[in-house]
């Protein structure tokens, strides 16, 4: 049946659940303020877009996210490469990362507030700190798993250690670096919302929490849906870039979901 051979069935299920929401809200007799029907949420979402308010809501969040993510990328890749390539650096920093890594990222938001206050610095720090680890660890393990034959090939062609890092180790580790970057991208969205819910006067996290506090419940749901769409777009864009940059890797390791 076409419904199950393609993803069509999945979309029908989503539509069905939304219709159920609409119906349940209208027939339950619950106050419309706490349990608005889906159509009300759609209205709120539309007015967000139509008035352009969505830009004011998203822009601060996206700025924090981008800055934090880029910092994490720079530090994570550099530290991961150094740890993977130089034994000394590994011995020095491996225990530290093992101690810091298992702490759930939201737990150091209070610490960041203590030292950095309630402003953007705190949020960017929290995002960068949390998203740094997946990138670092994946870079490290990518560097470690570079084939020694590839390195020796570069050596027989007379390349220096630095050139080997750039011409062999970096591209060879790239697919795994991208894996870390993708995990971190999802994490960065989580962290921006958390940090904005804890302390902020703007951004999507603030918007959702503030809407709830002001009993603007349709707006609250609209904000959550915006987050969902944003996460989806970010991931889709990322996959495009990844596919383009490490195409050779996917082609060489092609596997189909059956």
């Amino acid at each position, binding site marked *: 049946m076409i419904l199950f051979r393609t993803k069509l069935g999945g979309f029908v299920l989503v539509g069905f659940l939304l219709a159920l929401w609409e119906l349940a809200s209208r027939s339950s007799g619950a106050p419309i303020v706490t349990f608005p029907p889906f159509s009300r949420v759609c209205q709120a979402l539309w007015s967000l877009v139509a008035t352009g308010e969505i830009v004011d809501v998203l822009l601060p969040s996206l700025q924090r996210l981008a800055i934090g993510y880029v910092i994490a990328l720079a530090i994570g890749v550099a530290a991961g490469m150094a740890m993977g390539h130089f034994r000394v650096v590994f011995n020095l920093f491996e225990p530290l990362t093992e101690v810091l890594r298992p702490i759930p990222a939201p737990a150091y938001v209070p610490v960041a507030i203590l030292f950095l206050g309630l402003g953007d610095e705190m949020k960017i720090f929290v995002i960068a700190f949390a998203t740094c680890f997946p990138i670092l660890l994946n870079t490290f393990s990518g560097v470690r798993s570079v084939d020694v034959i590839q390195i020796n*090939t570069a050596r027989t062609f*007379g390349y220096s250690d630095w050139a080997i890092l750039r*011409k062999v180790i970096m*591209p060879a580790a790239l697919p795994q670096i991208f894996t870390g970057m993708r995990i971190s991208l999802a994490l960065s969205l989580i962290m921006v919302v958390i940090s904005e819910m804890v302390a902020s006067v703007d951004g999507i996290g603030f918007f959702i929490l503030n809407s709830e506090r002001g009993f603007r419940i349709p707006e609250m749901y609209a904000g959550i849906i915006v987050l969902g769409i944003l996460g989806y777009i970010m991931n889709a864009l990322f996959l495009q870039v990844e596919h383009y940059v490490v195409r050779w890797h996917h082609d060489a390791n092609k596997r189909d979901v059956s």
Partner: protein
Amino acid sequence: MSQLSLKSVSRSFGAYKALSNISLEVQAGEFISIVGPSGCGKSTLLQIIGGLLMPSDGTVALGGRPVTSPRREMIYLFQQYNRSLFPWRTVRRNIAFGLERFRLGRAEIDRKSNEYIELVGLEAFAGFFPHQLSGGMQQRVTVARALAYGADVLLMDEPFGSLDAQTRAGLQDLLLKLWQERRFTVLFVTHDIEEAIYLGQKILILSKAPATIQAVVESGLEYPRHQIRSKETSQFLTRRREVYSHVFPHALEADEAGAKAAVHK
């Protein structure tokens, strides 16, 4: 003066002695096959010559200068040719890998890469990635890459070992053809005695570990060689027997004892 000169080269790995007191002179343009029982240290010897591994004792000199790291004139071709190609580079860019070290323009690199792609007959595959090629094609890329780099000495470590017989014969003849045209020096490690005789001017036979040079046999076959005719000559068969008797002395003794017993029956 010989091009490559080894003086009492030894190498140990901890308590294990892999190579013992190996001395060798190689003239420019020579094709030398190296055989020996498996695990005797053939690859170790080749890596020391290539500057990838340091000897515990003794010296290697190329053109009169001691080899302490990989040298521009020598390229080592790995047994695991598929792992020695870079999967993110196309055939053309893999061949350009060595050239990129020199201060050449993009156009010059492309021109030279294309020249060597043609040399090994891979024009139609220049834009392909290594995983899209057969094993034989992959090995041709590594040969082209070494020659494009301008290497005078090819150190080949069982390069055709894992190829099927037909592809292997094709590559042997391609290598011989290129060698006759360009007269680079080849040190060719193999476990295949017939391949060693078919290709080399000299066959260097190593003993089991700790490896020493047990014998050097001149093949005496004429070039150009032919997969069928060269191997039918009595010269080839005599050499084959000679090399076998060095590599597997006991096998041959047992064989002869068996033959005598059969005669006495």
